């Protein structure tokens, strides 16, 4: 019944045996131990399980793992692969106080990454729209929006510093 597939997650290939009914979220958390990916509502409303699949932000709780072979998957762990230097989005979330309990953070950061990859200088409205599928139940969204704006600035500055 199980099918052996190779998942490309954060640049590394993982060979896993999956049942058809296992979601990407379950396989990432339970088989590959990437527990930065959360699971909240299980119905695509809260965004805590957001990952990038071929560069698009999707809900891993509504994705079947069996359909993910051959695709490029990125979780929050892939944003800071060395584990030492954080991604500018993560730095900005810390600097702006955009993290409280942290449960929504990984999904927020992945959605922010998806936005900033496509739109390096988003307006506040564009940031709010891009994050509208991610819920934070601790506090509000002001600091998160500020953090994403600051991260966009940081990412632009660092790409300008790099020789082309």
């Amino acid at each position, binding site marked *: 019944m199980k099918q052996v597939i190779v998942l490309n997650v954060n640049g590394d290939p993982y060979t896993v045996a999956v049942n058809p009914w296992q979601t990407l979220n379950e396989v990432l958390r339970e088989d590959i131990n990437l527990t930065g990916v959360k699971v909240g509502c299980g119905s695509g409303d809260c965004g805590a399980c957001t990952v990038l699949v071929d560069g698009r932000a999707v809900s891993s709780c509504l*994705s079947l793992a069996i359909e993910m072979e051959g695709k490029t998957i990125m979780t929050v762990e892939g944003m800071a692969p060395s584990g030492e230097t954080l991604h500018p989005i993560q730095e900005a979330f810390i600097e702006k106080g955009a993290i409280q309990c942290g449960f929504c953070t990984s999904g927020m950061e992945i959605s922010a990454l998806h936005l900033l990859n496509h739109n390096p200088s988003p307006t506040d409205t564009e940031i709010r729209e891009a994050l509208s599928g991610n819920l934070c139940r601790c506090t509000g969204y002001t600091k998160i929006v500020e953090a994403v704006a600051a991260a966009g600035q940081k990412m632009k500055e660092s790409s300008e510093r790099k020789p082309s």
Partner: protein
Amino acid sequence: MRLSHFDYYAPATIIDAVDLLQAKGPGARVMAGGTDLLIKMRHAGLKPRAIISLKHIPGLDTIAFDKQRGLIIGAMALLADVADHPDILKHYPTVALAARGTANAQVRNMGTVIGNLCNASPSADNAPTLLAMDAEVHIQGPSGARTLPLEHFFKGPGVTALEPFEIVTAIHAPIPAPHSGTAYISLSARGKLDCTAVGAGIMLTLKGRVCEDLRLFISACGPTPIRARNAENMIRGKELTADVVDKAGAEASWETRPITDVRASADYRSKMVAVLTRRVLRQAHKSALER
């Protein structure tokens, strides 16, 4: 919460998909993006024995436009891609708007326009504007391919005109007439994220200052999207004066049969049908004048 157990099939052709659907019987479900199906399995007790995914069928994700035939949106075309498609934004702006207003970014990156239609929720965001544009559903089944006006597709909440073992392969929207305009407005809680509580979609065609023809559909105010024919009749052949627009709004409100549920009260919905009818009439009129 875990999904119930099922067998998974990813056929390579639509014919194979229909054959599999037939072979696996009533316990089999077709899956496009999966954003409705998996939620029904997780939260509404649906337990399919087999899931037949359309993801591996080449060409089903097509979005094609040409000036003779109009717009084709394939069964696997993602809501996000429909929302951003340059031809759709240019020639079918309300189709793009409705797709953009469906769920959230994550779901739009997984879910499809056709899936939203096949789920047949009375509140489906992509229905009113495609109904107003007189779109046609392309269907493949055991006895071959057929087409059906979208207007005849919705039969009740979650119920469509699909016969057993039939699969929708695409939706076709004709070229909008010259001097026509469209509009779609939906109301919901939490921005545009929650299911639509009331929606109105319209296409109208002007001849000089007179509204020559129009199609007006109200969503989430009955078991299916409802065509407000009496309101249409009050407008057809007339100039869109404030008085005509007001009366049509009131008439549309009479024609719908909203219920009270978690999203809105029947009373609120009835009032908003009149408001949205007036607004889409004015918007579509404006867009027709600009074309």
